[in-house]
């Protein structure tokens, strides 16, 4: 077993590498996301023991044993509350939730709503391949209407959920969109997301060569542009501009950090009992004297 380097020079990519071979399809967007995540953690100088990665169930969840770092691989659709609970217990540790579009917009969509309004200080990396890959290509709420998918031989009858319009309607404090084929941009976005004060929503458009035949790697390469690359400086603090830019995917798809509000307190900052508390709930576990409350019942 490899020793974790604890030198002041910081971690290197190898520190996150493990011996388990990836099982994703050839050309899967997960390879890029996986590389970007490791790079972002290294560039933030976080050692593997200084982070908690929480995985939902899906193709992305198969990353849970493909890199090091403290990890938990939970249930389908439930990664957000699992990650939020962990963060509340130890606010000092960066907590990153990794989920897919099936988990975040169908099975666990309620959790996304409440995570945004609660502004938990965690990051959600939302692997958006617009289908259920691991169960061999059923439609998700983000699949294009009319597409013929596994279990939808006549094309899906439901309307496609506009994920960005939905997210912006909830007054998020950090929204970014990335493309799994652009690793350097993903690294920058992930770093900013992890450092964000509250809940960071990162929508990663992910190529799925096996089951997504409508938004392919080539199609995404052609259509994605970065708001940070434009001639005019993009103002990430302009909420209305961000919403318009994010939702408008008719011709081109905007990527990059679309919106960041830095002035909104996160959930833990809002908790009255935790104000000015220097310790974490993890450190506070001890048999506690309850005499003062017991006396009130005499």
């Amino acid at each position: 077993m490899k020793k974790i380097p604890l030198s002041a020079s910081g971690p290197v990519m190898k520190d996150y590498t493990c011996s388990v071979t990836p099982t994703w399809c050839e050309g899967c967007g997960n390879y890029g996301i996986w590389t970007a995540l490791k790079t972002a953690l290294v560039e933030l100088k976080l050692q593997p023991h200084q982070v908690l990665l929480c995985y939902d169930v899906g193709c992305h969840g198969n990353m849970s044993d493909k890199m090091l770092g403290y990890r938990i691989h939970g249930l389908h659709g439930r990664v957000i509350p699992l990650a939020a609970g962990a963060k509340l217990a130890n606010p000092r540790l960066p907590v990153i939730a990794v989920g897919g579009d099936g988990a975040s917009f169908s099975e666990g969509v309620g959790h996304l709503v409440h995570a945004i309004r609660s502004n938990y200080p965690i990051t959600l990396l939302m692997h958006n391949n617009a289908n259920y890959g691991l169960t061999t290509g059923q439609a998700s709420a983000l699949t294009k209407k009319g597409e013929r998918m596994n279990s939808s031989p006549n094309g899906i009858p439901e309307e496609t959920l506009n994920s960005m319009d939905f997210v912006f309607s909830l007054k998020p404090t950090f929204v970014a969109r990335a493309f799994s084929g652009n690793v350097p941009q993903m690294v920058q976005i992930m770093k900013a997301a992890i450092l964000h004060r509250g809940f960071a929503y990162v929508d990663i458009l992910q190529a799925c060569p096996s089951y997504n035949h409508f938004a392919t790697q080539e199609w995404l390469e052609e259509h994605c542009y970065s708001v940070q690359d434009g001639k005019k400086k993009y103002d990430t603090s302009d909420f209305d501009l961000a919403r318009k830019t994010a939702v408008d995917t008719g011709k081109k798809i905007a990527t990059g950090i679309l919106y960041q509000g830095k002035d909104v307190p996160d959930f833990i900052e809002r908790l009255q009992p935790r104000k000015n508390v220097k310790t974490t709930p993890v450190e506070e576990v001890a048999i506690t004297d309850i005499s003062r409350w017991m006396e009130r019942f005499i």
Partner: protein
Amino acid sequence: MVRTSLKVVGAQGQGVNSVGEMCAKGLKRAGYCVFGYREYMSLIRGGHSSYQLDSANTLIRSSETHVDVVVCFNHHGIRTNLPDLKEGGILIHQTAQWKFSPEEEKLISAKHLKIIELPTLDILRTLNAKPILGNVLITAVVWSIFRRKPEELKALVTEQFGHKADLLAQNFSCIEEGFAFHGKHAANICVTLPEPDDQWRKQLLLTGSHAMGLGIVHAGCRLYAGYPMTPSSPLLTYIADLQNETGMTVKQAEDEITAAQMMVGAMHMGTRAITATSDGGFDLMTETLSLAGITETPAVFVLAQRPGPGTGLPTWTAQGDLLLAVHAGHGEFPRLVLAPADSSDSFDLMPEAFNKAEEFQIPVIVLTDKHLAEALFTQKPYDQKRSQLRRGSLVTDPKKLKSLKASDRYDPSAPDGISLRWLPGSEAVTYCAQGDEHDSEGNVSEASANAAAQMQKRMKKLEALKASLPEPDITGSEHPEILIVSWGSTKGVVEDVLRDEAFRGRQIAHLHYTYLWPLKTERFVALARAAKHTVCVEGNHTGQLSMLLKRACGIGPTDEVLKADGRPFFSDELKEKLMPLLRP
């Protein structure tokens, strides 16, 4: 035991609880053990609710179906609860010019009932007091009927309103008027309380939920995530009300799945966290329960039972979820199910629930019910010196942390299947808490030998856990002819009944199960084999503990006393059901 019982009835929101609580506190301070029982409906205003207090100068842990005094807030109470009075009982009502029906008149005369009509509104008007003070006036009349002193009530209201001179003066006038009214109009209608006993005066008067809340704080729990659902809500409310003093993180989640996930996430990170819910809410949590089973994450769930199926009877009680607790969640994994019986257990067992969860790295289900959650107990102040913090094989020593291998986390050869656990953030090698079947490091593995080894590793913990549990508590005869078996909140009423004259001197034993899964049966088998009758007393329709016992040791009870109507067992009712056993 000389039992004195008082039942306050009325619509929800009329002041039933407030009179009940004041009388309870007054009686306890006067030197009586009080047991309070509330019945109410799933609505906010209206309906019909009651607050019953049974008191004695010795230990009392149950209610009776019939009472000495009924206090009615409205005429529905007169109609509904007149038959609840014992022979010679007293009805206090406030409905002007109430005419009893011929049937009621017959009942009154046959049972020699005494009626007091209290002109509350007139008295309040004379005193220029607000309607809310009617509660104090009524309490004063009851107090006078009990032949207690007005000073006792004055001391109580001073505690509450001492800082508001005007209000206090009005309270005092109401107390005086209540005594004056009784003295003038019904002086001969009285209830003689037994001699008080000083031991009760300094004891606590609290509900099972209060007791459990104190136990949770005491256990070092630092995070509570819940979703409102009766009868688990009073626990959420109490813990939330204390948060500014305890510094606990309290989260009212968007649903029960969230609450359970947050608890598991927080426990994985290394704090002590808990969630509480009731029937349907627990159904929603069961997938998370199963996850904790395979990731071997310590977890504590409080399941407060009420009658199902479906929404069932939301504000009533049941013991219908024992088998649910034992079997909930898909797949096979070890768990601990325990059931506190009363306010002592509700406190004492909470540190233990967390200790066992951490020592064995398993989910623990604390099975309570509406009766326990909301009943009012007279309770000896808790002995906090006995409590221990046991965190099992949790590694925190920096040196030891550095020597860990990732494969230590789920090492199948660990003694008793209990492998080392260390927390995210620890300067050590990392691992994956894996919800898929996994190898010793938490890497996904679908290999057959590994799957078998990991299943055996986890299930081995159940044997060690079982060995660590005590046998069920036994009271009474060592060689019983009659063995009464109970679990959970039924303990109190069984003990009260067995103290009755009729059962004294008989070879009877009471075996009470606190730890229900894994189930210890050695003591049960020894007693049941020798006993003529073995009777399981349970608040459910199918005899769930009986089923577990039969499965675990092949022996079941000879008789069952079951009840599934939303009500707890009442002492007179249970006595009647057990009496036939005494016949030769």
